[in-house]
């Protein structure tokens, strides 16, 4: 069972959370061309290894969190708020 260390609540089981989305993407500008939006909405990398993603603590404090998860081992190496980054921690 994956466990996620919520900055607000402490370490909790992943069944309290719902996966949100890839957190490595940058939202295009509002007036960016359709092609750029199309890419943003439909194209995803599928890395084997470290990945940064958003999770929602839906059955806890309801905060949206940024999580660094290894897609290969499911190890979670870092959890932060949506506007933090793992690099800043180390």
């Amino acid at each position, binding site marked *: *069972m994956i466990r996620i260390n919520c900055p607000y609540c402490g370490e909790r089981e992943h069944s309290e959370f719902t996966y949100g989305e890839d957190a490595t993407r940058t939202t295009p500008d509002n007036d960016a061309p359709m092609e750029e939006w199309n890419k943003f909405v439909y194209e995803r990398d599928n890395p084997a290894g470290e990945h940064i993603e958003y999770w*929602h603590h*839906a059955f806890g404090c309801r905060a*949206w969190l940024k999580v660094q998860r290894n897609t290969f081992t499911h190890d979670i190496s870092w959890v932060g708020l949506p*506007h933090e980054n793992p690099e800043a921690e180390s």
Partner: protein
Amino acid sequence: MSGFRHGEGRLGDATLNFTFDGKPMLARAGDTVASALLANGVEVVGRSFKYHRPRGVTSSGPEETGALVTIGAGGKADPNARATMEPITKGLEVFSQNCFPSPKFDLMSVNGLAGAILPGSLFSAGFYYKTFMWPAALWYKFYEPSIRAAAGMGVPPKVADPDIYDRVQSFCDVAVVGGGSAGLSAALSAAQSGLRVVLFDEHNDLGGQLLNEANSEANADLEQWRADAVAALKAASNVKVLTRTVCWGRFDGNMLAAHESVDGKVRQNYHKVQAKKIIIAAGAIERPLVFGNNDKPNVMLASGARRMLNHYGTATGKTLAVFTNNDSAYQTAFDYADAGIKVSAVVDSRQYPSQALVDGCKSRGITLFTQCVVTEAKGWQAVRSIEIADLAANGQSVSNRRRVSCDVLAHSGGWTPQVQMAAHGGKPPLYDKKIAAFVVGDQAPDTYSVGAAEGENGLLAGVAQALHAAKAACGELGKEAGPIIQPPQDRDGATNIVPLWSVPAKGKQLVDIQHDVTAADVVQSHQEGFISVEHLKRYTTLGMANDQGRTSNVNALAIMAQCRGISIAEAGTTRFRAPLAPVSMGGFGGREIGKHFKPVRRTPMQEWHEKAGAVFVQAGMYLRPQYYPKAGETIDDAYERETEHVRKKVGICDVTSLGKIEIVGPDAAEFLDRVYINMFSTLKVGKARYGVMLREDGIVYDDGTTSRFAEDRFFMTTTTAKAGPVMAYLERCLEIDWPDLKVRVSSVSERWGAMAVAGPDARATLTAAFPSVDFSNEAFPFMGVVHAEHNGAKMVILRISFSGEMAYEVYAESDHATDIWQTIIDAGQVHDIVPYGLETLGALRIEKGHVTGAELDGRVTLGDVHMDGMASKKKWFVGKNLKDREGLVHPDRPQLVGLKSVDPRTPISTGSILVTDANASAGADKQGWVSSMTYSPELGNFIALGFLRGGKDRIGERIYAAYPVKGRTVEVEVVSNHFVDPTNERVKG
């Protein structure tokens, strides 16, 4: 019969009654079903999966492949239970499986013969795949039913299980899997550190292979060591000992999953244990040898036969023979001989067993055959003799066949470490030539494998590994493991095995006894090209079901490796996956079954609805009134009456299930402008507006009404279905996308009870109910919002309509909602107000042409539902960038239309396909579908909403709604989706 009671073993004195196929039998406390059946002389316990071959007890542990029985009757029946793992309880009912009329005389055993006669064999490797290639028509009529009748095991009970299953979630520092000498030692040592320790063992009695030892004077000190260790662990406050608990999987984050069997009101506990360190001391299990008819009842694993005698006080036969390729099986022969049971032969495939073993046989008068093999077990139903033969030096042929009499054959093909648990968390196991088995390769993090599970069969050597692991595990957690008293005796772990993977022999040679997979099937799999171990498994069904490859995997891999001319290490193993042992579904369900499967939400007015005789329906998680039947009314009568009454006078409907979200802050209007396609910053305080949200890809997400309570305060309603997702979406937008916006959202769905009052008399009703509120069209126009109070209860009243009638939605604080509802009902009496349910709500909205979840199904665009005009051109909003993609604005897209059946009393089924040809076949051009239907009392006609290709321009056309599943085709006329009040005169009046 051959088995009988012999000695005491470690059984208790109490006698227990049980039945086998209804026949009364006696057992002793501590017996398993297997030991009790053997003690009662039962040889044939059941029939095999495919060939219906007679099967008996093959072991005394979890590796049981023969004695699979059904335990209990009725809802308590537990099919495919391993008789070796089920303790006898008072009055237990045990049933044989897969045999008719009885295990001894079974009509289906002809399947086994058919395999020898039919070319290709009826049930040989890959039979399922090949059978599918025969004429398809025959499959349904003949093969499928006859194969189903012939193959299979226990029958699942048809009635609900009355027992309770629970789930237990816990944490520990050190988890020890397996309670043999190594596991006991590791747990004892770790426990002294003060850390929390959990010990799992699937048996009732702890001790592992110590329980195979004779409970004799010579072993008294060893038995005392075992008893002391168990007592010390059970007494320690920081140790949890879980017996009869199979630890069947290891998951992310060091979570161990285990099923515990208990006697009592609760039948099983499903444990999820979060461990910091895991010591795997799961032991090893003995492999069978592969020779002719090696599945015959009374062919047993040597260790199993030994434990039956030494632990369960049950001799497995009157004359024992032993067949082995290693040292360990000799002890079975010696213990039987020492217990006074005749041992007719030890057949060893090796040329030179050690002198100690040779002398051991000699001193007991046991005839030893070396460089010799058993080619076939003989006997009609159970073993009565064996055929042995000399094995050529190259192992490829045999000569000098002769008979040896015996009524039980104990065999050993070596030991397989239980590496599954270790493999769940890490790399694949590696082949170890010395013990001719796979051992743990790289350890997973936080994991230690010790003792026989690591390939170390020696007693003291295994204990030393266990203590080492305990020290390391505790040390990494900052604590110190303590010393323990060493076992007073040692047992040499060297088996001196010389692999013997199969014997050149006649008769069926079973590799997977439980699944009826033979050595010939493995060879056939190779011939037909399925040579990788994963393909071999799927093609032959080897290692599936209960066995999970425990007894069968290594032998099969070795035979395949031989066929391919490669080493076993190169052939590798299949991937180990949880569960490694059969576990019941009940444990996973726990108490969340039936009504507790998911929560039921009730509205504040639930009791009122019940008293009014409402029929309820589950809508999302909510229980909602579907209709309120009067005496003798059908559902159709009721909703047609309710619908007609709302259109003529007035009705009231519970709409509490709508999602309600408050949006507050100086940037609240800006926020709504971004999430809705239409403008909300221009909405005046005290007004409501209908809004639509898109997803980023431009598809319609949700709709609802949002009112402005103050400059910085809005009140949003969502559809019932999307209440949760929309809330999470808004939170996401604010926290991730636009953290600069000063806005807070909070769900107030539970705070307000909601009711819709609709109909021409709605205004008069509400005026009478709440005289302090001015409901006149001037003071309270369409889309107006009024805050009010009644008897101290706060209310928000919105003048909005979902029905095409003049209507209001009254939101009242939940605690007072029933009072407010009753007040409206009382005031409406003069207008004969009726409560109406979900059916009428649906009928009214379909007549008006409003969309709901049935239409907004995640595929439709704004244009599809004629709302493209609503999208603001003055601002950006979510979905704006992609909503006008070529495919999303194509004029041929299916668009929302109304449909009227040409014959007014013919219903149009929801889900029908729209076609232009009345006799359309499956390949016809499908032009759309029907999403919602109702009878419209207003029109006196069945009507529907649907999506039709280019529907906007096809009003007046006559087409067909086809429902091929029921063979129904209805001629319909395409009309506007606004059947009623198309110009909004009523709602605004």
